[in-house]
């Protein structure tokens, strides 16, 4: 082998090595560009949120959990408005329609917020390049918790009272159960329509409370409310047992059952307030409060009918106004 041949061989090998290296780099670049959709066709959408603090350039834009683009540019307009350009892959454009909105979503308690775009009304035309989308503000978890705190705190104590009331009702040795048994015994063979109806109502109310109690147990509310239960149990202890009064049919019975009605009135009013507060905050929560309120209304009706029944003396001294279902007329006092 001559020296010239040896040099040529080395040159060829170096040439091949360089070619392969360059080829590998080109291939990697190609793969990288294909993976990052660098040369894919894109279109731009704009959104004008009240603040740009949660946005940054390069932030992922997701649609149904898939990354469909990124935040391309953030700029402050001459009139102080924020304008954010979203660069989205053109192949997803067919999925975005008129009525589509943009919102910031936090995937968990920690981590960055992501920009999410919604599909809009699928019956309408797809979005044009350069369209401006409305920004939908979502209450953050912190805000929601802050807003709910007072309502939940009062719900806490009232639901506690309800749990106690439910236990009181469900106790076989409890006053209402005994009262029912006593009424049944006292009215056996006597044709007293009102009393029979009262018994039916007692049973229905007890069933409603059983259901409520179960619901509270399912939600773990019973354990959570243990502290408030202890406090509120005291309130219910003040309700003097109906049984003895009913058994003795003494004049005090009327006064004691009136105390029960008044207490139920108070609870019912407070529940109304809480249900209204919860209704305003989240649509999911008020179900329980509504159930409780319905049960409370039923209990009040029951207590009222016991008071005015044959055994209660058939009298009702404190006349209610009876307008609680009707909004009072306007008196030029509302703003």
């Amino acid at each position, binding site marked *: 082998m001559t020296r010239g041949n040896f040099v040529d061989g080395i040159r060829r090998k170096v040439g091949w090595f360089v070619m392969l290296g360059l080829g590998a780099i080109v291939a990697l670049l190609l793969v990288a560009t294909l993976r990052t959709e660098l040369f894919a066709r894109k279109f731009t959408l704009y959104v004008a949120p009240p603040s740009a603090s949660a946005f940054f350039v390069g932030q992922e834009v997701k649609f149904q959990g898939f990354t469909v683009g990124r935040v391309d540019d953030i700029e402050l307009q001459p009139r102080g408005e924020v304008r954010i350009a979203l660069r989205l892959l053109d192949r997803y454009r067919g999925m975005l329609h008129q009525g589509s909105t943009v919102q910031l979503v936090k995937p968990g308690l920690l981590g960055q917020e992501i920009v999410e775009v919604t599909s809009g009304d699928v019956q309408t035309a797809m979005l044009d390049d350069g369209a401006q989308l409305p920004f939908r503000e979502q209450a953050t978890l912190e805000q929601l918790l802050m807003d709910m705190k007072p309502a939940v705190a009062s719900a806490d104590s009232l639901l506690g009272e309800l749990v106690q009331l439910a236990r009181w009702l469900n106790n076989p040795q409890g006053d209402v159960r005994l009262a029912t048994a006593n009424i049944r015994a006292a009215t056996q063979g006597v044709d007293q329509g009102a009393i029979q109806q009262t018994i039916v109502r007692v049973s229905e109310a007890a069933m409603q409370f059983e259901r409520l109690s179960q619901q509270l147990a399912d939600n773990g509310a019973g354990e959570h409310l243990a502290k408030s239960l202890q406090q509120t149990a005291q309130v219910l202890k003040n309700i003097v047992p109906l049984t003895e009064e009913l058994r003795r049919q003494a004049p005090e019975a009327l006064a004691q059952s009136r105390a029960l009605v008044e207490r139920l009135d108070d609870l019912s009013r407070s529940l109304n307030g809480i249900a209204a507060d919860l209704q305003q905050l989240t649509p999911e929560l008020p179900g329980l409060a509504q159930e409780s309120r*319905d049960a409370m209304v039923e209990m009040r009706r029951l207590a009222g009918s016991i008071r005015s029944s044959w055994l209660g003396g058939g009298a009702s001294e404190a006349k209610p106004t009876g307008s609680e279902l009707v*909004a009072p007329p306007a008196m030029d006092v509302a703003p």
Partner: protein
Amino acid sequence: MRTLGLILLLCMVACATRHEPPQTQVTNPYQARAEGLARAGVDALGREQWKSAQMLFEKSLQAATLADDERLMSLGWYNLGRAYAASGDTTAARAAYLQAMRQADEVHDAVNRQRAGLALALLDERDSTEGKVAESDNLLEVPDSFPIDVHLAAARLAQLRHQSDLARHAYGRVLELVGQDRSGFIYAARAHLGLAELIRSKAALDGVTENSAWKHLNQALDLLRRAGDPRLMLQALNLATEMETDPIRRQVWLQRASAVQQALQKAHSE
């Protein structure tokens, strides 16, 4: 003797067979829900949470529709109208009152017919749109058996139309109907306030003193302190400021009214 015994036995049998067996009362859950939601809506309206009241009345109406209870539906439309009117949407309020009237007509519910008619007429008076409710004059004649709120609305309408005698009679009827509960106290306070305004305007015309007007106003203030209704309390304090002749005491009333107004505004902005 035997015949007498037979007659007695026959009488007893007749009595026993005439006695109807007790009917089992079943609670319609949709009806109960509609009533519960209406109650919650009225409560929210009292706390000036217009949006919440609106939402609760809408749901109540929905439940009444599911229960197919036309009386409750008519009442639902009226309540919804009140929530719309309170939040300032008079167009929606008018439509709701008209729907309440139509629905009440269908079930011959004279009470809710008059209730919604009065609410519509009061809205017209507030907006100074005369003649919108052609038959509204008949609305002022309320049968004594009607509920308290209808009498109060009629009293207010009569007062706004300067029909003092009718207004005084209707306010008197309101005071007869009030119960011993919070709602009753507030209705009584409204009636006393209305009477104080009536007497004051008459006294201003006749140039006489307003002693009985003060009596009604003090009663209204006393009831409002017990029952609690800041918006109505503000109206009463404003009236006291207008009626007071002594400059120092007038200043005191004014300060109290301003304090309530500021507290109300603060409560709304929170």
